[in-house]
């Protein structure tokens, strides 16, 4: 787990923490079942206020990335989770939307874009 806070960022600190944790959950660096440090421990380690980290965890919990379990702390939920799937879907849509808009701008046709996606699908090993 890695948290880097920037005071120059336009994002408030709690949002920076939330986004960075989200990123690490989505890209698998924090697999499901990982127990996150306690809110107070994290606040101490990052050097921010307790309310700030509480808010980051609350947001993540609402969005379905983590759950607080009695006596265990906050645990990363499975990416099979329905809400998480939606999050993924949103990211995919975002990416595709950019692709479609860019394609239209250079007058690329729909089949051409489909073909490009098919090629990329094959080339990507993941």
């Amino acid at each position: 787990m890695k948290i880097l806070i920037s005071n120059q960022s336009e994002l408030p600190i709690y949002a920076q923490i939330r986004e960075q944790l989200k990123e690490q959950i989505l890209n698998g660096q924090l697999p499901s079942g990982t127990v996150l440090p306690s809110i107070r421990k994290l606040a101490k380690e990052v050097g921010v206020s307790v309310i700030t980290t509480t808010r980051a965890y609350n947001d993540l919990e609402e969005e379905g990335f983590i759950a607080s379990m009695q006596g265990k702390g906050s645990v990363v939920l499975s990416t099979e989770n329905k809400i998480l799937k939606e999050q993924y879907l949103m990211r995919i849509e975002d990416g595709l939307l950019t692709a479609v808009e860019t394609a239209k701008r250079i007058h690329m046709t729909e089949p051409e874009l489909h073909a490009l996606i098919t090629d990329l699908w094959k080339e990507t090993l993941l």
Partner: protein
Amino acid sequence: MSLLEVKNLSKSYNNFTLQDVSFSLPKGYVMGYVGQNGAGKTTTINLITGLSQAAHGMCTIDGICYQDNPRKYKEMIGFIGDESYLPQECKVSDIRFILKSMYTSFQLEYFNQMIQKWELPENQKIVSFSRGMKVKLMFASALARNTRLLILDEATNGLDPVMRAEILELLQNYIEDGEHSIFFSTHMLNDLEQIADYIAFIDHGQILLNKPKDDLLESYVLVRGDSLDLTPTMKQKLIGITSGEFNFEALLDSDETMGFDSRFVMEKPTIDQIMIHQIKNGGAAHACN
């Protein structure tokens, strides 16, 4: 549950009145008490510590008020004050002796560890200590016993960055278990701003604002621009305008940014900037209305 509860504190001196000050600080959190010199910070702290008696109102720590049990009440407080807080003619050994004989929860070993770690001279009078050494000794005295509330009265003013970082770590360790709270007063927020959960502004003896720090920072934007671009309705929304020859600067409620387009520069304010513009706005007088 709140650890420090301050309710309707009032106190008058010849030329100063503290009016109806109320706030509460929950267990495990940090509150920054911010205001100009003479705004009433020290008066409030004297009332909390039982040094002064309020004309009205009350103040409790963990449900106990000073009059109920002065000794127990004071045992719960760890205090870090300014340069003159420690008796100047004493040595570290005298302070150790006093702590040992007065406080039931004094941990001698821990105290000695800190004295050693910070290399504080054992047989030198405190009057000859540097500012940093005095602060270290105050922290050693306060942290080497079981307290519930740490009160810092302008304690970190003028410390070097290394020392400040060290103190931040100590403070965060102190609240980590969720049972201890910290109340600090300052006129220079940058010092401890990053670990504060709540910020209370005091001006002319009244509480102007009291909010979680993150909410406070989000509730305003700082706007700069040319005064000529302002319509009367826009001008009304601005809080505490400071005008220069080439631009103006003011606070704006985050929900009121309508009409402020690309001609204006908008950014996140710092706590200091919020304070400056709130006071500029008329401070306590305005808050009354």
